[in-house]
């Protein structure tokens, strides 16, 4: 009997269980709410008092007087950035001046690059207003634009030196559908780098002319690029191993499609498009697209072994350690021109240019692309848009941005005319050829795909071209598959809507 009684007492009834669970949930919710309430709103900073210390002759007099309040005293702005070096200027250099000048408390949130898109979109799509200023890639504009505040009205009242931002960035990064949604903070383009010392060597010139029938020079077409790459691929020290390759590409699955796109845009000139701008049919499997892919494959075959595993670091190292004669890459190497090494060359020298193009009907068509790069925009749901714009304008101003783009620690590249022509940049000794090539690239910019689903369109292209390069499928099969998948994605998003947004992204008038 005692045993049975003990067994009954240890059994928990259903009613007790439910009561206990509900109690736990309510207690948990109250605790969470109390915790959140304790942290919000943040305490307002004390009113500003300006203290001036005036030294008069032999005595020091300290005068204190109430100062003019900063325009956004008590406001708080949250800026979200790619974590790492991009955060440093905001957090360590300028949060103090921003507080002094604007009265704004700046909160800096750093997110790893792999999560930036998802986390920003989560906040934007839920409209919480948690982020005021956002750093984002131009390729994301199609997905972000409906959540961003147009800046036109602000710019009319308080010009951010808009005309000083290079035209290519203004047109292809910051503007969408005729409105301005961002300001460039990192002006990435793709430059052609080459070994100037090899190209200018008289013996190399003579040998190249004898073999190919034209002069060795910076390649103007992709066919010339492949010829030069073939020419320079050699064993220089006679050990039976190739130690110089003519070119290298960033061939790793993930974003190698950028290097295909450089060729596609040239081969599809004079009016390159990824989609027919009248009906949104993909043009990615056209004869021009096929020719571009075959040209790219030839470049890959002339690249060092393992090129299909090259990401940024591997390609950078391959060129900077002297084992590659040419490559197309972001502007970073140019600022580190004096780090170029080659154990088998006396004086390795870096040269700069625009990626090659294609000649059609006697006309040379060359383009560069806005791959990468970073923009700053204001969230529509921001609770302090005026303060956010003031901070944005300050940070993007010619004076502040000049400091950022000339400091290698920030990782930011030139994007204003004033950057290229500033005495500070001249004094840094950066080669004029680099600056000229950089500006020429901006002038020839072609935008990334900036419509909703952009990441998916791009990844399909990357996967299928990667499969072709790896020898899994033919070029035609790869591009036909891309076209078919792109049609499916377009239908999922709505063909009419995608067509309208594609035309807006490309600066075309509505149909």
């Amino acid at each position: 009997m005692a045993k049975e009684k003990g067994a009954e007492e240890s059994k928990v009834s259903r009613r007790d269980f439910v009561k206990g669970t509900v109690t736990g949930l309510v207690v948990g919710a109250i605790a969470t709410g109390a915790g959140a309430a304790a942290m919000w709103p943040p305490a307002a900073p004390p009113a500003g008092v300006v203290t001036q210390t005036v030294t008069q002759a032999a005595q020091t007099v300290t005068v204190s007087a109430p100062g003019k309040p900063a325009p956004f005293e008590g406001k708080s702005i949250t800026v979200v950035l790619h974590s790492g070096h991009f955060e440093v200027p905001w957090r360590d250099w300028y949060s103090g001046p921003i507080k002094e000048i604007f009265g704004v408390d700046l909160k800096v949130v750093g997110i790893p690059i792999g999560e930036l898109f998802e986390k920003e979109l989560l906040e934007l799509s839920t409209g919480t207003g948690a982020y005021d200023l956002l750093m984002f890639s131009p390729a994301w504009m199609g997905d972000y634009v409906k959540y961003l505040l147009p800046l036109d009205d602000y710019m009319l009242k308080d010009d951010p030196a808009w005309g000083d931002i290079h035209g290519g960035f203004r047109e292809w990064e910051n503007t969408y559908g005729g409105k301005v949604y961002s300001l460039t903070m990192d002006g990435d383009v793709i430059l052609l780098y080459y070994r100037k010392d090899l190209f200018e060597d008289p013996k190399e010139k003579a040998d190249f002319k004898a073999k190919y029938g034209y002069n060795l020079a910076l390649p103007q077409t992709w066919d010339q690029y492949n010829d030069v790459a073939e020419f320079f691929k050699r064993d220089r020290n006679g050990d039976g191993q190739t130690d110089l390759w003519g070119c290298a590409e960033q061939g790793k699955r993930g974003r190698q499609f950028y290097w295909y796109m450089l060729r596609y845009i040239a081969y599809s000139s004079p009016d390159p498009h990824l989609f027919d701008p009248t009906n949104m049919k993909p043009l990615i499997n056209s004869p021009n697209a096929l020719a571009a892919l075959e040209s790219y494959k030839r470049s890959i075959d002339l690249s060092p072994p393992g090129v299909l595993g090259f990401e940024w670091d591997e390609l950078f190292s391959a060129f900077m350690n002297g084992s590659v004669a040419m490559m197309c890459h972001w502007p970073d190497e140019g600022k580190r021109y004096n780090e170029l090494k080659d154990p088998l060359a006396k004086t390795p020298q870096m040269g700069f240019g625009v990626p090659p193009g294609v000649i059609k009907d006697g006309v040379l068509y060359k383009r560069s692309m806005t791959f990468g790069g970073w923009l700053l925009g204001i969230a529509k749901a921001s609770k302090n848009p005026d303060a956010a714009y003031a901070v944005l304008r300050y940070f993007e101003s010619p004076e502040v941005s000049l400091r950022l783009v000339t400091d290698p620690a920030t990782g930011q590249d030139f994007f204003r005319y004033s950057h290229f022509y500033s005495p500070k940049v001249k004094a840094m000794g950066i080669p004029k050829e680099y600056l000229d090539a950089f500006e020429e690239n901006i002038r020839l910019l072609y935008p990334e795909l900036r419509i909703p689903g952009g990441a998916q369109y791009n990844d399909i292209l990357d996967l299928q071209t990667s499969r072709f390069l790896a020898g899994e499928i033919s070029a035609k099969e790869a591009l036909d598959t891309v076209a078919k998948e792109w049609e499916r994605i377009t239908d999922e998003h709505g063909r009419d809507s995608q067509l309208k947004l594609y035309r807006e992204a490309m600066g075309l008038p509505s149909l």
Partner: protein
Amino acid sequence: MNGDRRLAILLVVPTIALLLFIVIFPMIYSIYISATSFNFVHRELTKFVYADNFVRAFTDMRFLSSLRNTAVLVGVAVTVEFLLGLAIALLFLEPFKGKTIALPLLLLPMMITPVTVGYMFRLIYEVRTSPINYLIGLLGFNRNIEWTTSSSTAMLSILLVDIWEWTPFMMMVLLAGIVALPREPIEAAEVDGASGWQRMRWVTFPMLKPIVAIALLIRTLDAFKIFDSIFVVTFGGPGSATETGSFYAYLVGFRYFQMGYGSALSYILLIIITIVTTLIARRLFE
């Protein structure tokens, strides 16, 4: 309700609340969105599609290819890890000089975070500076093996990473199991004249079956979910040579933001792994 019962309920309630919020609710919600075309970025595209996502998965050649890659990876990796782990565990049964130092050193790989292991191997596999290629070159073979960039060796590269990292886990579980076995049946078999192999095959291994089952189940579950090393070393490439089911589901859900379809893929993977582990458990626990 007496005090003891009340206390018992109060102690259990926080865990139940946590489970509800973190496990049960997300699971129910993910089942719901797997029946929709939910797009995280473009929610205006969301509508009920019922079983369309599941039907689509079975006509999606890329998903089917990823399942094939997963089967190869899981089958080969778990088998090799088991055999190698067992061999090393048997070695550690006998005393030898340096055993106390060797054992913790052998466990090091599984203590390193998978992402770090991935970056380490990415450097090791870099064609021109690869120490493996250098050693192969010293033996007179071709030293330019493109480990991660050739379709024929990319999967092998991922397998080597997984085997290097997780064989110590197998070794540790099997060693613990072997050491805990009763000695009497083994000694009796030895007295009866059984050879070393016969004792292993007919006495030790049958007693070890439950431990083997647990080790295989845990590793199979883990290998099925492999992600970090693929993300860092090959990103599913070259082409789609190393794209596994879990990696593809990640791309669909977190790169393309098609969370409805991604959820459906995840549930299909869940069903597959449940069937596989059930079969393993039944076979080894019977």
